[in-house]
């Protein structure tokens, strides 16, 4: 019999019941909740007179609507100027209080973006099933967990039953071997993967990231990669556990301690794909050939190396794709064939569940240190992913480096990744953004998003247009 993949093992360990019709009940270990996709679920429980099955498996924190300026954050929920946002955050507080759910409230030092808070507190652990009403839940798969986003009806279902009705996915392995070059980051790796397989390439698959590049990658880098599995169409991304996983998890608030830790590690060691495991599809990429990436269009698959030129629709023979390119160029205000380095930027956003962890903060700070934001750039905001990230960055003096360079240092939240709070792009503005989606209007009405790594975003903020960050690192930039 063939061996099992990591996903097979996670699935088998959580199978409560296989039904005759092909669907299955899967047990959920951890349920993360935020204010946007939960109010209707809590309301559903209330209307049906139900209580959460295991209320102590749920962790909530507001992130999408919270303001990121210290002035607006000072008086907590009551200080949120946008009344509709305020009601949504208040509703999360009220629901968590009513149902007894643990919540890191707006100005709790542990508050932050759900996908940053889950791993850093140890609430999400290897071998777990993790769900959240948010498609970027795949982030947690970096720990060797089965993690994916769900809809609000499913949020209610998991609260009421601790289970999810699911159907087993197929197995895909993305193997990236070789060694990443200087200035090439986990973000560039995942953007290069999406460019290769497309935004629907992973549909129907659980996507495991394997190969030398991921074995050498830090846990935070793995979190960045798994975060964007959904942008390649895969609901769940994951990385096999190893020593890097254990080193990351050990000592975190909700991680097991003492004898329990030893018992856990003994079990977690099995959360790797067997050598003879069979994948339904394998994609191989040469890691040493990956260059810093920049998205030029309105879908995360519209991405190219920084030295490239945006496509010319005339070169595309497929009518639907040609139409997509034309529409994207028009929306983005770009000329066919224009060099990516000639795209001037108006704003910089460093943050989001993709790139707001301490290593991202350090990486961006290392680029701006001793440099200045270009005068043509309206603003460059740096939004740490959580209160813990913020405190750590400040302890290292990173906030001062950003501020000295003319960047703004903000309070934690989702911020301009999706602009549900006050942080938005203006109509027609180009943004060098470390977030995950460049959809039309995502960062603000008429806003133009370019997805890049923290290093590339920082460098673009200094230059006023996209530049190859490697020229900053090797000192060849003027």
């Amino acid at each position, binding site marked *: 019999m063939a061996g099992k993949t990591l996903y097979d093992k996670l699935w088998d360990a959580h199978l409560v019941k296989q*039904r005759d019709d*092909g669907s299955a009940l899967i047990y959920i270990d951890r349920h993360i909740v935020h204010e946007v996709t939960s109010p*209707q679920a809590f309301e559903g429980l209330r209307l049906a007179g*139900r209580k959460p099955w295991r209320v102590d498996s749920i962790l909530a924190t507001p992130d999408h609507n919270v303001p990121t300026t210290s002035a607006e954050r000072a008086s907590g929920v009551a200080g949120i100027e946008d009344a509709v946002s305020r009601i949504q955050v208040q509703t999360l507080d009220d629901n968590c209080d009513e149902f007894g759910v643990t919540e890191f409230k707006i100005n709790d030092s542990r508050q932050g973006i759900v996908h940053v808070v889950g791993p850093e507190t140890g609430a999400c652990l290897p071998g777990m099933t993790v769900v959240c009403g948010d*498609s970027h839940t795949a982030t947690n798969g970096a720990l060797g967990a089965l993690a994916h986003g*769900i809809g609000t009806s499913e949020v209610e279902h998991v609260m009421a039953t601790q289970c999810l*009705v699911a159907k087993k996915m197929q197995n895909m392995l993305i193997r990236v071997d070789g060694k990443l070059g200087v200035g090439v980051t986990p973000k560039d790796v995942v953007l290069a993967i999406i460019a290769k397989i497309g*935004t629907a390439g992973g549909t129907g698959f659980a996507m495991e990231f394997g190969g030398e590049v991921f074995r050498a990658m830090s846990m935070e880098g793995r979190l960045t990669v798994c975060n964007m599995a959904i942008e390649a169409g895969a609901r769940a991304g994951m990385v096999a556990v190893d020593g890097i996983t254990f080193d990351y998890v050990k000592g975190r608030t909700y991680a*097991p301690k003492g004898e329990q830790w030893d018992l856990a590690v003994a079990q977690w060691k099995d959360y790797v794909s067997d050598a003879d495991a069979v994948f339904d599809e394998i994609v191989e990429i040469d890691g040493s050939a990956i260059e810093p990436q920049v998205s030029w269009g309105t879908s995360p698959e519209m991405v190219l190396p920084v030295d490239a030129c945006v496509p010319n629709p005339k070169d595309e023979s497929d009518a639907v794709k040609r139409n997509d390119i034309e529409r994207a160029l028009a929306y983005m205000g770009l000329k066919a064939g224009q060099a990516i380095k000639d795209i001037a930027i108006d704003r910089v956003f460093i943050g989001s569940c993709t790139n707001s962890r301490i290593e991202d903060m350090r990486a961006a700070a290392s680029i701006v240190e001793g440099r200045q934001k270009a005068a043509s750039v309206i603003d460059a905001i740096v939004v740490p992913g959580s209160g813990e990230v913020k405190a750590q960055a400040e302890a290292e003096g990173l906030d001062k480096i950003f501020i000295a360079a003319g960047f703004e240092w903000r309070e934690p939240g989702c911020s301009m990744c999706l602009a549900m709070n006050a942080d938005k792009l203006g109509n027609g503005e180009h943004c060098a953004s470390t977030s995950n989606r460049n959809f039309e*209007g995502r960062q603000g009405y008429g806003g133009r998003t370019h997805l890049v790594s923290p290093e590339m975003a920082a460098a673009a903020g200094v230059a006023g247009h996209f530049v190859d960050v490697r020229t900053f690192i090797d000192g060849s930039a003027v």
Partner: protein
Amino acid sequence: MKSFTQLTGVAAPMDRANVDTDMIIPKQFLKSIKRSGFGKNLFDELRYLDEGLPDQSCEGRPLNKDFPLNQSRYQGASVLLSRENFGCGSSREHAPWALDDYGFRCVIAPSYAEIFFNNCFKNGILPIVLNEQVVEQLFAQMYAVEGYQLFVDLETQKVTTPAGESFAFEVDDFRKHCLLNGLDDIDLTLQDVDAINAYEIERKQLSPWMFDVIK
């Protein structure tokens, strides 16, 4: 949940690939704590020429006359025809809520993003997969004939054109059963309460730390 059995409805086009859920319902409308009222903001940035705000009346907002849903021939549409990877991106269930609230009960496309696809079934909407050639054919017929209607029958799993041509589609047995009968998933799962309890007992012995309390 409301059931879905049969539908005869006007088809409207969303003629592009990779329609994302941000496009279906932009983020500012996700601030609502309700499940209803999203229809007037369905495809807001394409449908109107100005920026839409939450809690704003849409009456009197400037309409984009080029957008199909603003054209008289597609009024009252309940079947949405689109291209590959429909519903990609954010997991927001507000997307099917908006489609439903507007009046769409069925989407036809060559492929879907999974979370959106799944969310449809929780809301009485039938997402149908037909191959690209068939979808292309339906687009052509729809553009050629004003008031073009499709007949969708979930029981027999067929889409029928006005000319009487039928196309079969696949649907999971479980989802079909729930949709035909308007069944609530939670009630069904709670019939397996013994299996869930048994799983928990076994798991607690094997991996006790998995049940540590979050506080």
